[in-house]
């Protein structure tokens, strides 16, 4: 990971490279024992990218199998393992850590003007827990994997399957503690470590989003942790809690599982919303419209998100009265998200729009998150839910949010802050191309799945030969997945390329608002040369653009 200064750059006179967090120390141990939040962020970047490949590999196999109606690529049991491992790896080892552990870890102290997070050693511990969980999951996969679906419902997971539930469960348990500790670090940091003058109402909305995310990580993850303990106890010690033979209720498992796993989806999307907010403000050259609404809607999403979990159980056998309550609450949880969409749109209105790659990802997010969110409302309606549960409609819905929303937000954020993280500019042309490829590939992959699901194609089936007419849409979906894969590979290639050959970045290449842009790119180890004292409001783009009157003025 060393930033070499030996590459001659004849056209760009570069002074002796300043000491920054990348070149301060070299050697493997300086990275593996670091407590610098920025280095830990990069450790996470490498690890989650690795797991993204693994999850993506399983997705590839799934889509290959579904090219033909017959189950001819793998056996049924193998297919069960493929979609299970795809889900577990992508949810627990990629999506949940992604933005908070990479961008959050890197940026939270910078954005609030602190030297580091409140507990740097716990931050490093978080990463090691993630790695341990990841290694356990890898071992589980290599020695047979799990076939229950990522939701590992009882009693199949507790009494009937022979696959490695306990090991997978423990891997997720350990990774869950990584998540809890990250959330703990962020909450304490945001409360205790803000620079003088950085009041709550001056915080970037990225910080509000991560604060809300941390609440969910802290209060939701322990419940799935204890659920995993119960499943492990049932399998290993025969302490049956969910066993119908003992009078246990399998639905209790689902209640406890979804109490976390629904808020978990807000862990995945809230940080992306925070990223998108920063990007839209910067590339519209405008203060976010309705700052307080966006800030409080983040907290509202975190709280409301805990009220809706049983909408995953409408057809599982819960009482109809309970279903009505949860259906109503599921409509309510859409409100704060809708408020954000309105605010982003209002920010764009009469803004001075720039179409740099981060903004392209933000636009993609806006459209795809809206579609994903609206289809979530369809699913909240009991009548529709009965029809499309366990079909590809649901699969399409959550991929629109998790991939079209969260991953686009992650990529947009990586592009936006890449100059700060690496000190280099990525090639803008290639980046815009990649963004376009991702957008096209994404829609080609997942839009047909809405149609497939509505027409009745069940999820988790490796063989649809009883409905061969579904093949066309499946082929389109697989083709889209290939395009999407190319779109994902491109940034990996040019980001790496840029670390050696990219143009060195200035402190603030985007002329963006935010304390992180007031320090060098890449920042010094202790973030700022002098303690910042904040006297301005967030998103002060008017001020930032004022000296450059010859440029397009910020429209009002």
């Amino acid at each position, binding site marked *: 990971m060393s930033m070499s200064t030996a590459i001659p750059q004849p056209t760009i006179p570069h002074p002796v490279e300043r000491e920054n967090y990348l070149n301060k120390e070299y050697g493997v141990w300086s990275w593996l024992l670091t407590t610098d939040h920025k280095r830990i962020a990069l450790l996470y970047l490498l690890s989650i990218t690795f797991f993204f490949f693994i999850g993506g590999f399983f997705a590839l196999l799934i889509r290959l199998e579904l090219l033909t109606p017959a189950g001819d690529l793998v056996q049924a049991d193998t297919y069960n393992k493929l979609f299970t491992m795809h889900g577990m790896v992508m949810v627990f080892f990629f999506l949940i850590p992604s933005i908070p552990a990479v961008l959050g870890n890197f940026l939270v102290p910078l954005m609030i003007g602190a030297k580091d997070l409140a507990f740097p050693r716990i931050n490093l511990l978080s990463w090691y827990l993630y790695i341990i969980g990841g290694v356990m999951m890898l071992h589980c996969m290599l020695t047979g994997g799990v076939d229950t679906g990522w939701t590992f419902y009882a009693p199949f997971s507790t009494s009937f399957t022979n696959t490695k539930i306990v090991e997978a469960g423990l891997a997720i348990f350990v990774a869950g503690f990584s998540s809890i500790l990250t959330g703990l670090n962020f909450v304490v940091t945001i409360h205790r470590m803000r620079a003088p003058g950085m009041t709550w109402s001056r915080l970037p909305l990225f910080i509000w989003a991560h604060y809300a995310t941390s609440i969910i990580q802290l209060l939701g993850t*322990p419940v799935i942790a204890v659920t995993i303990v*119960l499943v492990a106890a049932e399998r290993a010690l025969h302490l049956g809690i969910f066993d119908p033979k003992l009078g246990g209720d399998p639905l209790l498992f689902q209640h406890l599982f979804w109490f976390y796993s629904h808020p978990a989806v807000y862990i995945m999307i809230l940080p992306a919303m925070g990223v998108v907010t920063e990007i839209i403000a910067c590339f519209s050259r405008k203060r976010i419209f309705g700052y307080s609404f966006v800030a409080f809607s983040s907290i509202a999403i975190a709280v409301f998100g805990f009220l809706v979990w049983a909408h995953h159980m409408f057809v599982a056998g819960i009482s109809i009265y309970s279903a009505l309550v949860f259906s109503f609450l599921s409509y309510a949880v859409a409100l704060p998200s809708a408020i954000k969409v309105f605010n982003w749109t209002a920010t764009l209105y009469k803004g001075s729009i720039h179409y740099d790659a981060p903004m392209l990802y933000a636009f993609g997010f806006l459209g795809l998150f809206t579609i994903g969110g609206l289809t979530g409302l369809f699913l909240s309606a009991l009548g529709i839910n009965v029809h499309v549960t366990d079909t590809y409609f649901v699969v399409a819905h959550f991929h629109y949010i998790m991939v079209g929303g969260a991953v686009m937000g992650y990529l947009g954020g990586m592009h936006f802050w890449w100059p700060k993280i690496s000190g280099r500019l990525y090639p803008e042309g290639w980046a815009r191309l990649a963004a376009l490829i991702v957008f096209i590939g994404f829609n080609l992959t997942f839009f047909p799945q809405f149609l497939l699901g509505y027409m009745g194609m069940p999820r988790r089936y490796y063989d649809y030969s009883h409905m061969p007419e579904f093949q066309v849409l499946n082929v389109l979906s697989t083709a889209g997945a290939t395009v999407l894969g190319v779109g994902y590979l491109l940034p990996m290639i040019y980001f790496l390329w840029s670390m050696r050959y990219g143009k060195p970045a200035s402190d603030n290449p985007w002329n963006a608002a935010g304390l992180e842009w007031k320090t060098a790119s890449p920042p010094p180890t202790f973030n700022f040369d002098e*303690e910042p004292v904040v006297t301005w409001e967030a998103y002060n783009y008017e001020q930032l653009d004022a000296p450059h009157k010859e440029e397009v003025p910020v429209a009002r």
Partner: protein
Amino acid sequence: MPDNFAAGFSEDAHSESHNPALLHHFAEPQQQRDAASLGMWVFLATEVMFFGGLFCAYLIYRRWYFGDFAAASKSINMGLGATNTAVLICSSLTVVLAVWAAQTARRTLLLISLAITMLLGLTFLGIKGIEYREKFVEHHVPGASFSFENEPIPGHPGQFANPRHAQLFFSLYFVMTGLHALHMIIGLGIFLWLFIMAWKGRFTPEWHTPVEIGGLYWHFVDIVWIYLFPLLYLIDRHP
């Protein structure tokens, strides 16, 4: 909100009364103390939710199978359970005494309080071990050799508890008290470390944060038991 603003840069804080325990990214000891305290409270909130899942399972099955649960509850040793409750309450007292001793520079009292706390914790675990052994001998441990035949349902003469539902009670009993005991063991480890630090004279009235936050953890474990005791042991003790 009256949070600390200092972000750890000012050189003055370092030159003033530089406590060797002050970490570099904090501006002053008070900020570090407040961060540690908030961190422990937030962690305890996660622990509330961790045990909460088990209380949720317990609540549901107790409602469904009240008679069977009452019969099973009657078969666990209330005397030992009540004794353990008293033991933990005493240990909470010794913990607050330890914190007070650290605040007022009473090294001997601090060491004695920490030691007695650990002793009481070990007593708790010992009594728990006796209880578990009792259950093992009576075949009340869920699994292949579980047996709960012909146990009358309290208050319903002639009716006998359903052994399968009773097994649910015992599953919850072992998981809940087992998890609690695990937290006690961790607490013992923490207090051993505190004892060693206190022995080396590391704690002063200005800085004794680990004692305070270790104390918070211990009190939380006590509070969990305060709820476990009546819920598990006292469902129906009518003579």
